[in-house]
């Protein structure tokens, strides 16, 4: 275990020094700051106001940008190290592949999750000082959702990083995955429904298998349990599943998905030439 912690700790330190981490932290921290400056907490839209409104806006932007940030910053971790011969040297020491791979994942998870969480946490602290009511239920749900969305895309990123040999190809695949899943949040689902050729059950299954879609539905469902603002797919989902069960599913499923992808990535990493 000491080697796993060693790899995780060093990856974390290396990432924190990297320029991408600075940009990543500034984007999420900046979003919160921008919302406060723009007076989002004082506005009222669809009955949401104060910190609830701010968190809702934060999570809506996060749905789009968090996956691509995680994918582009992580997808090159194994393939990039292979490309520039770092893997050749670092793996010449007696560290098992399991410790190296999972250590990298652990270190990178902290790096990608912490700024997103901290931005939200700082908003809560600032809101407390301003005397706003703290929506703890929303804060806890969003923490869980951000954790699980980060897990899902980190797992996918490490899987891509393991299966391709070139970091440029890994980056291309990462963009494709992001665009594909993003399109299946709304546009592609609506077009499938409009064609009237596909069974509703299949369309809902497609929506439910997309971690970005269930993140979005779960995030909104706390404000709007009927999901009237979200269109037919979200409505169907809550029609076929109790709200509490769906929220649990929306947190558990992306974590499992991330673990499955990360495990497949590990199997590929172990079974192929390392350099």
């Amino acid at each position, binding site marked *: 275990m000491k080697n796993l912690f060693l790899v995780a700790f*060093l990856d974390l*330190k290396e990432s924190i*020094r990297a320029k991408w981490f600075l940009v990543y932290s500034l984007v999420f921290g900046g979003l919160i700051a921008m919302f406060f400056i723009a007076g989002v907490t004082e506005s009222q839209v669809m009955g949401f106001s104060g910190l609830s409104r701010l968190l809702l806006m934060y999570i809506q932007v996060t749905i789009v940008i968090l996956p691509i940030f995680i994918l582009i910053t992580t997808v090159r971790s194994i393939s990039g190290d292979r490309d520039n011969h*770092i893997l*050749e040297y*670092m793996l*010449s020491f*007696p560290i098992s592949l399991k410790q190296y791979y999972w250590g990298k994942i652990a270190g990178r998870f902290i790096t990608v999750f912490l700024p997103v969480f901290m931005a939200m946490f700082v908003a809560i602290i600032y809101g407390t000082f301003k005397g706003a009511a703290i929506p703890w239920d929303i804060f806890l749900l969003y923490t869980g959702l951000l954790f699980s969305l980060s897990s899902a895309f980190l797992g996918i990123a490490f899987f891509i990083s393991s299966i391709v040999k070139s970091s440029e190809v890994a980056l291309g695949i990462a963009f494709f995955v992001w665009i594909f899943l993003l399109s299946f949040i709304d546009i592609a689902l609506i077009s499938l429904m409009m064609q009237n050729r596909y069974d509703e059950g299949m369309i809902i299954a497609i929506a439910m298998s997309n971690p970005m879609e269930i993140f979005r539905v779960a995030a909104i469902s706390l404000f709007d349990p009927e999901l009237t603002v979200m269109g037919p797919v979200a409505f169907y989902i809550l029609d076929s599943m109790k709200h509490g069960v769906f929220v649990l599913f929306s947190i558990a499923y992306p974590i499992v998905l991330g673990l499955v992808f990360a495990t497949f990535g590990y199997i590929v990493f172990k079974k192929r*030439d390392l350099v």
Partner: protein
Amino acid sequence: MIEVTNLTKKFGNTISLDSVSVSFKEGDYVALMGPNGAGKTTLIRLILGYYIPNNGEVFIDGLNPMKNRVEVLKNISFVPQLPPPIKLSLDELINYVVVSSGTPKDKIFYYAKEMELDLIPNLSKSFFKLSGGMKQKLLIAISLANSGSISIYDEPTANLDPKARENFYRLLKENEDKKISLFVTHRLDELEGIINRQIYMDLGKIVSDERI
């Protein structure tokens, strides 16, 4: 002891190593020579357990380097041809080496000093920001500090100035004991007095294997 039997490695349709059999015993100081693409680095990478062979086997002290990589690598130190652009600071890199392999930190500092690399003022610097020669000196110091029974050097002096090369060869001579040392090199004259065996490779095969 390193035992290589009928080892073949292909990359696509290209045969990089073609049914090579060779063994290295304690006290072997071997110069692995040959033109570019002869299969020298491939052989070394198979010994280090990086590649899955298409055919044949490698055993190091009776252990397969892929299946028993941790046990095998405890006894191996390696200096690559080009220092990789590791972004860790020198302090972090040394910590990685010390914790993972048990190499004594004071010995790394000792050999770095012998290689005329002053580590103390550079500890917080990123490894990849050092000059090519400084990077190579540190990797050599780490390798010399390792008490493993096998040392592998893949053209280790490519980035070194004449004085640093001299220091490196002096330290190698001082360190001579019953080890196996493999040197991938194009400069046999520089290893004179250190090596006792010369292997010449071409087109993935061992063309000659002579004791000196």
